[in-house]
């Protein structure tokens, strides 16, 4: 174990002193941020602070001035106007507009507590929540009309509900009732840890690809015998895996230090609160197991060849394995609990990617599937580490030629 740490420390130190690695380390988050900025530039996703939402109110109860006062008090970026337009005309009016909403406050508002809201496709994500500021005004009207009989008290007790009716609102999804605890928030709660775990996994898998290079380094530089005269092949292999794991963590941390403040500044979400939830631990465990699995495969295959440019078809195929979850992205997005999603969960190579994706999308976690998948992953990691150890032991001393799949099979049997 001591020797494993020595190798790990050396790999870390060697890389941290290497210009190529340092440039990669710093450029990854910069590129990430640059793409996000570019994306919003071309996608017109301008979440600018100065964006004004036009709010037209068809007010049959004569409370417009009260509404206007509460808008001013709550410091919202709204341009509140009165309109005489009827509900039937609204759709045409909205078609060629952005950030516009129509509210219809009439008798039904008083009696049933419903306000019809029409919005354009493009509107502030939180608009429906912000509408809550009108609740006191509308309630006070309701109260005014009360005769204090139980029957008449009930609408007041029911509270006010804003019924969202967008342009597509005439379709089947029309009457999504948005309450203060909207679906958006709970989705963000799941997305943030999931995206975080996914990001960690991708960055350690990419750093893990460097293991590939590193595994054949001793061969290329003809150091294998010198190193192996001091420690066992197993220690060397483990040291490399541990070392590159730490490098992957360093890469992730550096990226997070850059990207997280950027995200918080840009999207104004309580990311830190969403991030540090118990689920994150499970997601991270999956990411780490994924790393160990691919690290074992890379270090084993890496030891069978002199360098990447001379890789045969077989080695090239194995290198593609970490990208295999891509096959399942489509089906999983369609149906996160479907058959393909489950198949992907149980195949060791695709399991980490598919699991992280599924758990991000699903509200209720399928715990039994998660546990089975974790058990499969742990066993696979153990199994592939063993195989890699066998290949590494022979491969590392094989100077000057690449091993064929046949030879590798023979070493495995030995």
């Amino acid at each position, binding site marked *: 174990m001591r020797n494993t740490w020595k190798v790990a420390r050396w790999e870390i130190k*060697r890389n941290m002193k290497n210009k190529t690695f340092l440039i990669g380390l710093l450029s990854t988050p910069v590129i990430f941020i640059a793409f996000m900025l570019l994306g919003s530039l071309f996608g017109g996703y301008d979440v600018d602070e100065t964006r004004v939402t036009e709010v037209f109110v068809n007010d049959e109860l004569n409370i417009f001035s009260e509404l206007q006062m509460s808008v001013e008090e709550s410091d919202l970026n709204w341009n509140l106007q009165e309109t005489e337009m009827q509900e039937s005309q609204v759709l045409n009016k909205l078609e060629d507009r952005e950030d516009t909403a129509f509210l219809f406050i009439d008798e039904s508002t008083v009696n049933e507590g419903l306000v019809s809201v029409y919005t354009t496709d493009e509107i502030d994500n939180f608009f429906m929540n912000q509408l809550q500021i009108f609740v006191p005004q509308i309630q006070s009207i309701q109260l005014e009309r009360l005769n204090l009989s139980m029957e008449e008290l009930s609408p007041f007790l029911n509270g006010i509900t804003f019924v969202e009716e967008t342009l597509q609102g005439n379709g089947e999804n029309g009457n999504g009732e948005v309450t203060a605890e909207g679906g958006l928030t709970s989705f963000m709660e799941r997305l943030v840890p999931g995206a975080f775990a996914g990001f960690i996994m991708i960055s350690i898998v990419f750093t893990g690809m460097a293991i590939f290079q590193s595994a054949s380094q001793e061969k290329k530089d003809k*150091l294998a*015998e010198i190193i192996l005269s001091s420690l066992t092949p197993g220690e060397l292999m483990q040291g490399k895996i541990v070392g590159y794991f730490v490098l992957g963590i360093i890469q992730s941390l550096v990226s997070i230090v850059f990207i997280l403040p950027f995200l918080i500044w840009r999207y104004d979400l309580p990311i830190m609160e969403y991030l540090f939830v118990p689920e994150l631990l499970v997601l991270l465990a999956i990411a780490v197991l994924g790393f160990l699995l691919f690290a074992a495969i890379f270090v084993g295959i890496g030891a069978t060849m002199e360098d990447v440019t001379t890789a045969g078809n077989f080695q090239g195929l194995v290198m593609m394995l970490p990208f295999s979850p891509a096959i399942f992205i489509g089906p999983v997005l369609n149906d996160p609990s479907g058959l393909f999603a489950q198949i992907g969960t149980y195949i060791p190579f695709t399991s980490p990617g598919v699991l992280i994706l599924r758990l991000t999308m699903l509200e209720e976690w399928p715990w039994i599937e998660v546990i089975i998948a974790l058990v499969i992953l742990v066993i696979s990691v153990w199994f592939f580490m063993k195989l890699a150890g066998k290949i590494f032991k022979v491969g590392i001393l094989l100077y000057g030629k690449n091993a064929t799949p046949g030879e590798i099979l023979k070493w495995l049997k030995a």
Partner: protein
Amino acid sequence: MISVKNVGKFFKDKKVLNNISFEVHKGEIMAILGPNGAGKSTTIRNIMGIMYPDEGSITFRDHKDIPRNKIGYLPEERGLYKNVKVMDILLYLADLKDYPLKKAKERALAYLEKFDLKGKEFVSVEELSKGMGQKVQFIASIIHEPELLILDEPFSGLDPVSQELFKEEIRQLANQGTAILLSSHQMNLVEEMADRLFMIHKGQKVIYGTMDEVKREYANFKCTIRGKNELSELEVLPEVQRIKQEENKSVLYLSKDVQPAMWLKSLPDNVRIEELVLDRITLHEIFIDVATGKNLILEAGELDA
């Protein structure tokens, strides 16, 4: 110091080492010789624990487990990490041998100075010339003050100046008590340096003994005569074991007990001599004979069996 007993090793069904036994003592230089593919490197790898023998045993000071941090090793196939600093790699290799870093640093600096590499400690390995690289490799193999130093072809690819430097350093280490196991093709160097030697061919022991013993036993006198002489005339000369003739040159291999001065006097007057050299068979010739399968040595009988 280290003792190899009846070691055998199979590669698949082929036996590449058969019943190999030898010892290396403290403060001596022991040479292991043999043509390519004879099993020298395999023997060394077995000692280093890079491979494990299928038969026999290897013990270090009568202990089965070999303390690798007490052994220094310079393999035949050797190199250094390319994109690191000289000092970093020396300290890493010393650290792997559990040698205290502070002492390692001092020794590294001292040796770099000794080998004319002063000021190169912060230079990247890829900027070194081949010769400099070999010096750094050599330093790496001795930085942790090993009790046993194994050098596989240490002189290959060295220029004469560096060769002399290495020879001097190896001798000094032996004088300080390091046991040295050296493999080489360069017979003249082995003859110059080794106290004892072990010759191996096709995985089998051929010769094993001290340099003096080997010379006394195998390096009989031979007489090379330039001039046209009939084979039949030379064959009748006393003490001649066999004759090799090509054109005008005859090589007479003399028996072990020959008295050189007396034998010269016994040469008949009719032998045509344009040039005559009387000397001993060199290690080089023994080596060539072994390698090409002419069993000159077997004729002379085995020593120290």
